[in-house]
């Protein structure tokens, strides 16, 4: 068992290679090597910078970061985020249909004496398909082609190298702590996520985080069960009261009807949702069909042009010269039609004048052979390009077919369930009637017994919840003690980083959440002596950069070596006055031996200039995405302005 004295060893990202990733049309096999502490991918909006970071994260964790991520536990998050359908949906529209089975990402991860190169298919069920592990001179290769379970092998190796107890926690660290992406998730204000991060950073042993999560979830479950049972008991009590009122004077069962109406509405909603899905899929199919028809028509048109042009080339004027009758007349000096001798030279002259020797018509001159050949080549290239598009649309139609059928099945199931309900319970919606006092008295007796049983159950659940809570409090107490000791380095480091940006005294403390059903911790942030209880009490850029500072300090506490932060266009609505400060904060983190992989657009350029000044050529590298993707007019305009900014950044690096 590892303790915080033997912290986790997070990998450093050394290289990222994409293959058949045709979102980057001009560079589908893009490759970046990360040798300097700060690596920045720069380009106009919409070129795929965020996609690059998400794909990198997918390469490392096998899961696409959820932009709307909510956190309950590392395991639950991992299960949801690593579903193959999520990756398929994410890359739909980013990778073309023909490249979906081929597209891969390869990431090189390095520890002190081990390197792992992992390759994953992006849109396939297969996940990790190849892994190369290098330890000193030993190289081991696993591949699905050789029948190896690469995913399992990779996860085992990563856990062995990092000392992290389970892969769900490794995924959590990358998605929630080490990545600040387009989702703009703020760990500072997410009590559940920060609690898990604190356990990983300061927990008494490597299983503390998992244990606390498990206890917390068990406690929640017991609380929820107690609430549900109490709710059921209350419903039974209401029922008893109604029956008693009916016994006294007669009254319809409005509460039962309300419940039935609620069920009816839920089922109706399910039918509507399923119908919407069917409509959406049908619309997608229709759009694909139209595209198919449109491109097919273009192919036919181009083929016709091609044939006409080719025929024109083959059947041009110079063919007259080779007509058997003309050839015979010239060579024999005797007309092949009327047998007159000595007419050969005259026929030859007329041919040279592009005149038909028989009817004296002037034959239209055809364009130069080379011009036709060039046009044929162009048409041929256009036809090939259109065929590729057709192939793509065909694959899209093949995918949409089963998806549409599946949506129709769901609709049928939802409709059947509704019909079944309407024929059964739903039929009672306004039919429940008193059936005589003897029956009602018996019903009251039955419901009273049920009420007692439910009450006892609720009490048992509450008791169990309190027992778990006490156990959890002990784990939390241990964390609190460990945090207090570790805060001698963690808190000053956070202050240093955050104050560099915010320019005001800042402090942070953890607070145990109190209450019978509360567990875990929350962070208490104080800026300039004033407690900030919610994210709304900070400006947007303060929120972002304080959160990034927190991640930096946490990652340093979590790992025993260097850590890598992935930051996607961090500037937000960054005030110009803060840009130099943001650069300073990033530089301080990098100077401690850490790595930053960031993306930036025009709005980040001032931050980058400042960072470049501080880092110099040896400490920072910049890659432009202009050569990766085809630019729209708007993007091209932004790139023109980026050119100037890029030059300033390059000068600052020099």
């Amino acid at each position: 068992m590892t303790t915080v004295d033997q912290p986790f060893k997070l990998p450093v990202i050394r290289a990222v290679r994409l293959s058949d990733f045709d979102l980057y049309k001009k560079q589908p096999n893009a490759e970046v090597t990360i040798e300097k502490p700060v690596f920045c991918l720069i380009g106009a909006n919409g070129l795929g910078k965020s996609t690059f970071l998400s794909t990198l994260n997918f390469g490392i964790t096998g899961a696409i970061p959820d932009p709307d991520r909510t956190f309950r536990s590392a395991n639950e998050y991992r299960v949801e985020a690593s579903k193959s359908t999520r990756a398929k949906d994410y890359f739909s529209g980013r990778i073309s249909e023909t490249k979906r089975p081929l597209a891969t990402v390869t990431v090189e991860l390095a520890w002190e004496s081990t390197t792992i190169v992992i390759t994953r298919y992006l849109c396939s069920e297969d996940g990790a398909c190849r892994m190369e592990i290098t330890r000193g001179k030993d190289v081991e290769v696993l591949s699905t082609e050789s029948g190896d379970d690469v995913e399992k092998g990779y996860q085992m190796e990563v856990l062995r190298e990092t000392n992290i107890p389970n892969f769900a926690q490794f995924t959590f660290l990358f998605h929630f702590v080490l990545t600040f992406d387009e989702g703009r998730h703020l760990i500072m204000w997410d009590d559940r996520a920060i609690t898990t991060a604190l356990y990983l950073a300061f927990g008494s042993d490597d299983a503390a985080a998992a244990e606390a999560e498990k206890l917390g979830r068990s406690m929640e479950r017991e609380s929820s069960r107690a609430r549900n049972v109490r709710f059921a008991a209350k419903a039974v009590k209401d029922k008893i009261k109604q029956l008693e009122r009916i016994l006294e004077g007669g009254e319809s069962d409005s509460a039962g009807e309300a419940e039935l109406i609620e069920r009816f509405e839920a089922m109706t909603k399910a039918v509507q949702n399923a119908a919407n899905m069917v409509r959406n899929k049908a619309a997608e199919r229709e759009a694909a069909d139209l595209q198919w028809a449109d491109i097919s028509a273009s192919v036919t048109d181009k083929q016709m042009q091609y044939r006409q042009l080719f025929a024109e080339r083959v059947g041009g004027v110079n063919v007259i010269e080779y007509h058997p009758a003309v050839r015979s007349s010239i060579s024999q000096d005797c007309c092949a039609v009327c047998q007159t001798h000595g007419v050969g030279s005259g026929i030859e002259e007329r041919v040279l004048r592009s005149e038909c020797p028989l009817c004296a018509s002037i034959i239209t001159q055809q364009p130069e052979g080379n011009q036709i050949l060039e046009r044929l080549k162009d048409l041929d290239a256009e036809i090939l390009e259109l065929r590729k598009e057709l192939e793509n649309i065909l694959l899209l139609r093949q995918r949409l077919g089963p998806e549409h059928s599946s949506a129709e099945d769901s609709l049928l199931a939802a409709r059947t369930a509704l019909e079944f309900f309407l024929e059964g319970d739903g039929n009672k919606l306004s039919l429940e009637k008193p059936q005589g006092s003897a029956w009602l008295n018996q019903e009251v007796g039955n419901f009273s017994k049920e009420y007692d049983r439910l009450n006892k159950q609720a009490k048992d659940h509450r008791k169990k919840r309190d027992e778990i809570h006490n156990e959890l409090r002990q784990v939390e107490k241990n964390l609190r003690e460990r945090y207090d000791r570790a805060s001698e380095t963690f808190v000053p480091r956070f202050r240093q980083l955050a104050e560099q940006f915010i320019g005001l005294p800042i402090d942070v403390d953890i607070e145990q959440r109190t209450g019978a059903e509360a567990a875990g911790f929350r962070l208490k942030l104080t800026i300039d002596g004033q407690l900030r209880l919610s994210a709304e009490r900070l400006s947007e850029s303060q929120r972002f950069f304080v959160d990034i500072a927190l991640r930096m300090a946490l990652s340093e506490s979590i790992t025993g070596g260097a850590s890598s932060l992935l930051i996607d266009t961090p500037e937000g609505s960054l005030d110009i006055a803060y840009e130099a400060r943001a650069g300073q904060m990033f530089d301080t983190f990098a100077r401690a031996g850490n790595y930053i992989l960031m993306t930036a657009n025009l709005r980040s350029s001032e931050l980058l200039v400042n960072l470049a000044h501080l880092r110099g050529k040896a400490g920072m590298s910049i890659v432009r995405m202009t050569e990766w993707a085809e630019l729209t007019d708007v993007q091209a305009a932004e790139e023109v302005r980026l050119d100037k900014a890029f030059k300033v950044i390059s000068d600052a690096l020099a």
Partner: protein
Amino acid sequence: MRFEPDSFSPHAFFDCLALALRAPQPIAPFTITELHLFAYLACLLSVYEGEPVADWGYQFALTGLGYPFSGELDSAMQALTLRRHIEVDNLESVLPLDSAALEMAKLEEIPSFKQRLRWLQTSLDCSLAMPVSVVKSAVVARDDLSGAGVGGPRPLLSNAYVARVHGEREAIESALGGESSNLLAPAVAWLSMYILQGRELAA
């Protein structure tokens, strides 16, 4: 002579020129029948490699004599004769003339023509790997041609036959140890398989 675009096939024009020009020395020149036969074999090889039949650019029919024949290829042969790229002698041999190589070089610049050379060349290589008469027997042994002389002319390459070709490709690749960039080995194996099947049926 004038060409109607609808009945003219640029692909047939190219194939005819390529086959006449590249017929291997030991068996050159091809006769007209042989030229149709090896064009058909090239078409089969493209289908074997998963290309749609419709993309070949022209069609074949089974003649009453039991050989593949293409009307478009025949028109292309006339066009090439008129342009003095080839000539057909009294023995029905198709002979390339001086201008043929230059025309071929020009047409090879068009990517979709160049792509066809793979199948045309493999078809020609088959004539080196096995005698022309054996290639003929192999092609004639195929189901599509087995009704030679019996049912009269009919179109070749039905959907059912194309599906069978794809199935046979899997069997041959598996026997040869996987997909290969060299098409000749599976092509020869494929033809041999038909010869054997033909012999078994005859026995």
